[in-house]
């Protein structure tokens, strides 16, 4: 039987697994979580009692359907599942997988990558201090652990998640001090019209959530600095409102995020090519409409194109059917055409989102020299600017000389801001700065796990 490996068990990975299993294949699903679901439909541990309606709100039905589907595929042995496992690298049709028992080698014939996205934070002076988190972290803490990141939380950034997380925290009784959106209202209205044209109900639901934030919400803000003690964390955030007036909000925790950044390291190691997306202001893998990104390589979900959970379910099915078709299996062309049409609608909606909640390029370009750009290693914007005369405006050379992008997050949280800083100093576009090359292992691994003899690796046993 053809060995299909699916990386990621979020909405895209689960739908891909279902589609392949229905065709009689038994795909292997590798996922970092204990329980399948992905981030947006992340499941708390089994002993937790909050119902899906509390955890997922209006999306409870979709979340539960995916969870039940995956559990059923597993219970009936239609899939193999490697939970708590990270793919570290891909080479010659073998995935190097780090799981609870160590590293093992998983050979595959076809690969479906559905690794989702992370937050896309922008640096703000003081963001390196304890108690500053990503926006997604605020949601994960609440959903998967039932905790708030602090007593007085400021949520700052832009994108649909900003409003959603704020509403979820308020519902759960958390102390939200302010919701600071850098997107001007004018952009939100322009993008919102495109969003409403593509998905009116979803757009209305978002407006409803926004209305519940009331006076906590501010649009068109500029973030100046998070002030506090590097050891104990934030005491206040300084910002300017849409009219430029200086404001200060006391807080003990800040969560930052400007929509999402595709997680593409494995796609790159698997041979995908990349283009700069002017819509998303980031590098995204190139694929055909069904997710084909190379020989035997298929991409789906937010790791391909940031269409959100509904789009990811569709893309997961599309990629799996493309894989089946390439294997010579008959697939349902009507279902594929229907999903392709649905995906186009998701793309129109997502384009509206990108317009409504833009990446704060100007705010980043104006960051002072002493602002930390790489929060892993405390490297400042000034250090990167000082590197440019020697490195030239190219991301990988600047990384070699400045270490921007070389820290433990492997550039996930500084690459895009770094490109903005370099582009500003070079009077160029961030796309001209090039793209940081992905390097295996894409997750840290202990040396003893990697020190495996060839014969053991080939038997798939931990070292």
């Amino acid at each position, binding site marked *: 039987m053809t060995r299909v490996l699916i990386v990621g068990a979020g909405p895209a990975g689960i739908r891909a697994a279902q589609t392949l299993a229905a065709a009689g294949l038994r795909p292997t699903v590798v996922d*970092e*979580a*204990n329980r399948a679901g992905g*981030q947006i439909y992340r499941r*708390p*541990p*089994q*002993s*937790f*009692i*909050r119902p899906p309606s*509390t955890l997922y709100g209006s999306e409870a039905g979709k979340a539960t359907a995916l969870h039940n589907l995956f559990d059923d595929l597993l219970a009936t042995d239609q899939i193999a599942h490697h939970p*708590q496992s*990270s793919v570290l690298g891909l080479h010659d049709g073998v995935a190097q997988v780090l799981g609870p028992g160590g590293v093992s080698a998983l050979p595959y014939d076809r690969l479906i990558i559905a690794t989702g996205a*992370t*937050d896309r934070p922008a640096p703000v002076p003081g963001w*390196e*201090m*304890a*108690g*500053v*988190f*990503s926006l*997604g*972290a605020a949601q*994960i*803490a*609440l959903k*998967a*652990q*039932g*905790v*708030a*990141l*602090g*007593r007085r939380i400021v949520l700052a950034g832009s994108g649909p998640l900003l409003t959603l997380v704020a509403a979820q925290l308020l519902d*759960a*009784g*958390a*102390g939200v001090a302010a919701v600071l959106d850098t997107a001007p209202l004018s952009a939100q209205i322009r993008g919102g019209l495109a969003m409403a044209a593509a998905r009116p109900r979803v757009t209305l639901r978002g407006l409803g959530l926004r209305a519940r934030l009331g006076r906590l919400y501010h649009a068109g803000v500029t973030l100046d600095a998070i002030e506090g003690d*590097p*050891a*104990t*964390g934030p005491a206040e955030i300084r910002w300017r409102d849409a009219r430029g007036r200086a404001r200060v909000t006391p807080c*003990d*925790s800040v969560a930052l995020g400007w929509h999402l950044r595709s*997680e593409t390291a494995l796609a790159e190691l698997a041979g995908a090519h990349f283009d700069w997306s002017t819509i998303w202001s980031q590098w995204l893998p190139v694929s055909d409409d069904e997710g084909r990104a190379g020989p035997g390589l298929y991409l789906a979900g937010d790791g391909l194109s940031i269409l959100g959970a509904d789009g990811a379910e569709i893309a997961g099915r599309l990629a799996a059917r493309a894989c089946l078709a390439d294997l010579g299996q008959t697939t349902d062309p009507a279902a594929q055409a229907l999903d392709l049409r649905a995906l186009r609608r998701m793309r129109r909606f997502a384009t509206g989102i990108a317009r409504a909640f833009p990446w704060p390029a100007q705010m980043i370009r104006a960051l002072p020299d002493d602002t*930390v750009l790489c*929060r*892993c*290693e*405390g*490297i400042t914007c000034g250090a990167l600017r000082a590197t440019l005369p020697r490195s030239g405006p190219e991301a990988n050379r600047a990384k070699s000389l400045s270490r921007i992008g070389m820290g*433990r*997050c492997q550039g*996930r*949280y500084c690459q895009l801001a770094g490109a903005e800083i370099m582009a500003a100093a070079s009077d160029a576009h961030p796309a001209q700065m090039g793209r940081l090359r992905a390097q295996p292992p894409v*997750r*840290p691994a*202990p040396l003893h796990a990697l020190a495996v003899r060839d014969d053991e690796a080939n038997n798939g046993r931990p070292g």
Partner: protein
Amino acid sequence: MNDPSRPTGRLQRLAETERAPLDFHFDGQPLTGLEGDSVLTAILTSRTDLRAAEFGPGRRTGFCLMGACQDCWIWQENGPRLRACSTTLRAGMRLLSEPPSTWPVAES
């Protein structure tokens, strides 16, 4: 800072508080988490940070909580590190904010 006189930690429990308690140690001091807590949750509901920053004066609390940023790696008394956000708390864990004193650390 790990000030044991502070009554509560950084994270605030909002729900799911009826779970069984689990005892563990952090920097030699007894702490209690709840069954199903991540190591990060268990520590930060009693403490305000996980570890010192390696490249600055500050402390660290984790950042992404989804295993992507690698900010929340801490130590176990028997040596190996773990990622606090993606490791489930087990009773009796003995955790450290810095490497065990017997651990070989490169001179900076």
